[in-house]
């Protein structure tokens, strides 16, 4: 009897729970969730980190690395979302971004200069679609998993409003912009891949780093923006609202007019 009540006491204690998870696997907390034990997480973090470093094209590895290393950054993002009305609405409605929830054809009919049109133009010019996002699998708390998912799905918007292409040096610049703005550790570690760039690209990136850090840190926390409500807003007004200013003009592989379903390699988040 006495022993029974002790057991019960222990099951309630979170530290012991954490310890027990080393040996046993709890049930999934949300559809698609893969609960991992502590050693598994450590292994995944190291493995995906190495893979993402040497082959940045492996978007899935970058995604896993982001989830493994998110740590306390996600609760901070959640806190910021809860603090403002717009962010709360996102958490309550939990919107998703892909080609079935966003009517890209309707967006392309919007007048030039609107955020929706800018986004579609950017998609076309880079030859990417919003459907290539990996679902979140390894974040244990369902709400934090949504925050991670939201971050991942909004990543393209940061490219679009800043007019940044998706080749590696710009990708790193956007990642550093995100690090200054959102604080996810993965985005900072993406900055490390700078050392693997050829000298010419590295020189170009160094023009963007000061912008990324200044602009990212002074802008409003972009995770709290309900982008889907702002399709009709003028993109310059939007940038003004968010406190974002233009980076130095990037060099595109293709001029704007020729944008078709191109071959640019999308570096996934």
């Amino acid at each position, binding site marked *: 009897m006495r022993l029974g*009540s002790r057991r019960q006491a222990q099951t309630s204690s979170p*530290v012991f729970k954490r310890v027990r998870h080393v040996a046993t696997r709890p049930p999934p907390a949300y559809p698609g969730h893969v609960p991992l034990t*502590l050693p598994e997480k450590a292994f995944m973090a190291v493995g995906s980190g190495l893979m993402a470093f040497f082959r940045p094209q492996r978007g899935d590895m970058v995604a896993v690395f982001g989830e493994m290393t998110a740590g306390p*950054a996600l609760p901070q993002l959640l*806190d910021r979302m809860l603090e403002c009305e717009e962010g709360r609405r996102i958490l*309550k409605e939990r919107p998703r971004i892909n080609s079935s929830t966003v009517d890209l054809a309707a967006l392309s009919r919007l007048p030039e200069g609107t955020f929706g049109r800018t986004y579609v133009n950017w998609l076309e010019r880079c030859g990417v679609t919003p459907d290539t996002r990996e679902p979140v699998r390894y974040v244990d708390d369902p709400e934090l998993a949504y925050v991670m998912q939201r971050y991942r799905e909004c990543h393209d918007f940061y490219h679009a409003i800043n007019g940044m292409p998706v080749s590696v040096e710009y990708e790193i610049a956007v990642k550093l912009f995100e*690090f200054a703005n959102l604080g996810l550790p993965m985005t900072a570690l993406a900055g490390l891949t700078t050392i693997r760039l050829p000298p010419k690209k590295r020189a170009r990136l160094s023009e963007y780093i000061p912008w990324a850090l200044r602009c990212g840190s002074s802008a409003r926390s972009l995770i709290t923006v309900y982008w889907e409500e702002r399709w009709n807003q003028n993109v310059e007004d939007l940038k003004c609202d968010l406190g974002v200013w233009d980076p130095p003009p990037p060099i595109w592989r293709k001029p704007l007019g020729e944008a078709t379903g191109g071959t640019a390699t999308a570096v996934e988040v």
Partner: protein
Amino acid sequence: MSLHIASRAGVRLSQRILKRNLATTAATVEECDVVIVGGGPAGLALASALASSQNAWRVLKVRLVEAGDLSKIREWNMPPGAYSNRVSSLTNASEDFLNRVGVWRHVAQERTCAMEDMQVWDGISDARIEFSANRLEVGSRSGSGVSYMARMVENLNLQRAALTHLEEHPSIQLLDKAKVETIVNEETNGGWPLVHLSTGQTLRARLLVGADGFNSPVRKFARIQSFGWSYPTQAIVATLRHAPHTIRPHTTAYQRFLPTGPIAFLPLSPTSASLVWSTRPDLAAALTKADPAILAIMINSAFRLPNISMKYLHDRIRGIVASGATLQLDEIRQEIAWREQSHQIESHSPLASALVDPFTSVVGVPPADSELYPPLVHDLQPDTVASFPLRLSHAESYIGEGKGARTVLIGDAAHTVHPLAGQGLNGGLLDAECLVRSIDGALATGSDIGSYTALARYARERYIQNHAMLSAVDKLHKLYSSELGPVVWARSVGVEIINELDVLKAGMMISAGANANVMKGSPGWNLLASSVESVSGGVQIAKALRQGLQSAAAGVLKQASNALAGRS
């Protein structure tokens, strides 16, 4: 035998001193040996203890001065099932003292509630410590043989009992509806304190006892400085009503440490409990002014929702109040329901509260772990919601010197403490007990009860004890106000290790007054002996250490990842 003679000699001597003084003072001034200012629990306990003392009641002329109307307390009568909102947890040490003094038999026992178990947990990490008087074999035994560590008593119930007790001792006169106008030093005859009352009476005190609360006029007269600080918190008190448990007894107290302050649920009866919720002053103001139904659902969620959601709810309430709107029950309920949904709290979970009917939730087999949380509050007893500021203060000395000689401080006049450990009233009662022992001792040896040497024993014994208690409670409050990762981790690991060590827990309970009289027996040694005796004792310690180390390792990994992310 010789002691007996000495004591009789002492009594005779005091009587002689008394007569001489009577002859030399003016007729308008009433000669007193002990003047107690303040008719709160500490002052009344002191008067009661003097009435039941060995020597004091025969020779001392005692007056108690109270500004309020004591007859209201004497006639205080609440219907069964209704409770006053000022409730204290009376430790067994205090109960034993009141029993010896003779006050306890006048306390309405059916209005008190023995506390057998206690659940205390961390608002951020959920690390939990459980105290059980029965399992740890600590505490007093009630009539039915069940051990309890403390007893919840309404302050008014206690005060009324003391007044009933004092009615049997007419030698102690109570002067109520008499405010202390001024206290001055007498110009001749050694400068004794003269207490001028609003009734026109003047009392000349051989010993002036300040039991007059935080803003003590006696302390001001004695020029005793007091140090301390206000906490940035305000305590909300209320009497809560909940559906009765079907299976478990109602003798568990619950306390959760939120970063804004602890919230406590203290059992009073199978369907009532007392709330002490210390929180930020603006939140306390908003919640006490709002519809009591809002406070009730906020109380339920404050024991259940993760800290991030409590913070969110607090911010929402602040936002709504700042915008000038009034808090709407449905709106807050929706917000809580949404947060529960976000945390995937199912409707049958013990953590669900917003959309659960408190009456049906107690029917049938309770969900797993439901004993870890207090029952759902369905409403508050009308007119019991109140709030007051919290502070720590300690007088620099308990005894006046020089111009302030012949004064002594007890209870809140000497020290005020955060209520998180429920030690405030108990401290005052133990002060009274110790002061009466000092006075009795002084009478036995024939010394002047107002002299510094006679009182020094009281100050020596109580000051250090109160100071240790005050500082422990203060540090606890500070430790649990922090949201810093490493601090939360360290305190959680510490609590989980302590939770495995019954000997240590029993020691904590004894030092918090769970045992009636520590001096009489040696429960601590008995406990140590029995735990060493049982083989499980050693095994338990090893197990706890192992688990502690494991959790420490998990914590180190977590800290490493935090540090990595801390750069953001």
